[in-house]
């Protein structure tokens, strides 16, 4: 996993609640055995019509959002299936930060494991940025170390993130390697419980 300390980028506002992982990456793309190359299928049926042409009315297709790397979304982002293809698609497309009032549990975990920063923020704060990003280009500067987001209007917002998640993101730590350091404890547990 690639480490991430700070990220400054253009915001794409997806003003919808309960965006499920079937919308983020539809099932027909889950048959691949690779981890990469899912970006072109992100939000597939929202971005493309039945003939594969871009839908002009879907925000992400608009020229203004072409370089977006920060996604703003409504409540319960990433609900539904456990498919890690969802964060793979978001990351491959170019998103490094997702900000929403709430996330589905499995998606939140999956995002963290792939070096995406999922930031939970109060809806009232988000609404303002959502509106701004809909009206004109909004750039946010996300400082993970300092747990703050700064917008171009010198508006600064603090966010919470569990310390151990933060540490893993900051250092791009390999969770399996960390666990394997405790292998003796795992062995002892198995022995004691006859597993």
């Amino acid at each position, binding site marked *: 996993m690639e480490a991430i300390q700070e990220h400054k980028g253009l915001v794409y506002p997806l*003003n*919808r*609640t*309960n965006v*499920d992982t*079937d*919308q983020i990456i*539809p*099932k*027909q793309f*889950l*048959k*691949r*055995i*690779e*981890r990469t190359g899912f970006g072109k299928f992100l939000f597939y*049926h929202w971005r493309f019509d*039945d003939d594969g042409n871009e839908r002009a009315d879907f925000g992400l297709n608009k020229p203004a959002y072409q370089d977006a790397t920060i996604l703003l979304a409504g*409540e*319960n982002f990433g*609900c*539904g*299936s*456990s*498919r*890690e293809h969802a*964060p793979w698609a978001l990351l491959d497309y170019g998103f490094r930060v997702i900000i929403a009032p*709430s*996330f*589905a*549990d*499995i998606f939140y*975990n*999956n995002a963290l*494991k*792939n070096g995406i920063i999922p930031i939970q923020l109060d809806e009232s704060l988000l609404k303002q940025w959502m509106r701004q990003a809909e009206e004109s280009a909004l750039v946010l500067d996300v400082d993970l170390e300092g747990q703050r987001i700064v917008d171009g209007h010198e508006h600064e917002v603090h966010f919470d993130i*569990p*310390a*151990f998640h933060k540490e893993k993101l900051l250092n791009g730590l390999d*969770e*399996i390697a960390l*666990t*394997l350091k*405790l*292998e003796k*404890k*795992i062995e002892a*547990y*198995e022995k004691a*419980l006859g*597993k």
Partner: protein
Amino acid sequence: MARPETIVSKIWNKHVVHQEAGKPDLMYIDLHLVHEVTSPQAFESLSLNNRKVRRPDLTYATMDHNVPTKDRDVVKDQIANKQMETLRQNCKDHDIPLADMAHPDQGIVHVIGPQLGLTQPGKTIVCGDSHTSTHGAFGALAFGIGTSEVEHVLATQTLQQEQPKTLNVHVEGDLGPGVTAKDLILAIIAKFGVRFGTGYVMEYTGDAIRNLSMEGRMTVCNMSIEAGARAGLISPDQKTIDYLEGKEYVPEGAAFTELADSWLNLATDEGAVYDKTVTINAAEIEPQVSWGTNPGMCVPVSGATPSLDDVDHREDVKRALEYMGLKENQPMTSIAIDHVFIGSCTNSRIGDLKKAAAIVEGKQVNPQVRAIVVPGSFGVKLEAEKEGLDTIFKQAGFEWRESGCSMCLGMNDDIVPPAGRCASTSNRNFEGRQGNGARTHLVSPEMAAAAAIEGHFVDVRKFAGVPN
């Protein structure tokens, strides 16, 4: 006396391998279920890092998401075929037992776990699939994980997990005749919303839950994830023990008696404290039909689609109605369907098929409807055939298929066409779930069967053939 504990806390405490302040617990996993779609990248990364599968004997694989449900001799979809071939090779390389497509134990992973007795009370069970919550029906702590976590479990047989909060979903009273476990869980999600379980493990309690069959309990726990909870469970009781006795992977004789006692001791103690409790009265629940694009968008069959003036999130409701091709205030019984799917990890067990068969017996599927039945496992299919259910379905005009996930998510050929409308016994009515542009209405097997005959939704309680 010891402090009263919930079943979640009892299971958790027995599985902590390592604890450190400020960090998640390292938790042991007793059973890791694997399928073809969410595992290839995990095995690949394992090999790249020269790591081995720590406990192949606690791992069990099957193929369910991709598999065709007819003409299985040749898998025409080459990409799907490669994914299945990859699982075969990975299981071979790592000595993992595999119920391959032609194996007698093949089936939907959440159907075969309980059927084989791999699923047992008190176990920690994970799988790269969000409906792993199904196994909670047996008093196991079971939840879905992503592919990175699949890899973590393969390599270490553990997961780093924060101890979840507990949510008591208390169901008072009892369900009326013709009202099923599916209606109960749909009504719960409709009442409390699609995210009320986020961050929690839900425990279902109360008379209505005790009175459900094990299959009904599986249907309820299966959809915990649709309420936001990664896991939902039910304290074990005599029904749990009776169901598991004699299953292939369950010990026999004195060992079973001892195990059964330990299972009963797992039940939540009288007076244990939950982080949150919600209550619903089962007697007030009617058969349900979903109208929108998430499982919370659901009403009683006597109801109608919402009025835009009465809802929060008006834009989302408007979008959902548009996608579904419905108007506001439209009675559910006025909605005509053209597809019926009876299957999925929610409702494809023998009891589900029996109840649906009782409704369609001697009747004919409406000529405008294409209806399919997909048994949850090869074992369920054989049992159904032994009882003649296949004949009942086929004579009524249903297609009778091989087992798999099938039209629940349409990863194989079983899809609903664009703008097609399906009465489905599955768990998700998301946009495009059953096929691009497909419109899904979630219902019980009985309601799906009745809709197949009538060509539109009907209150199954007023339908001839409904078992009392």
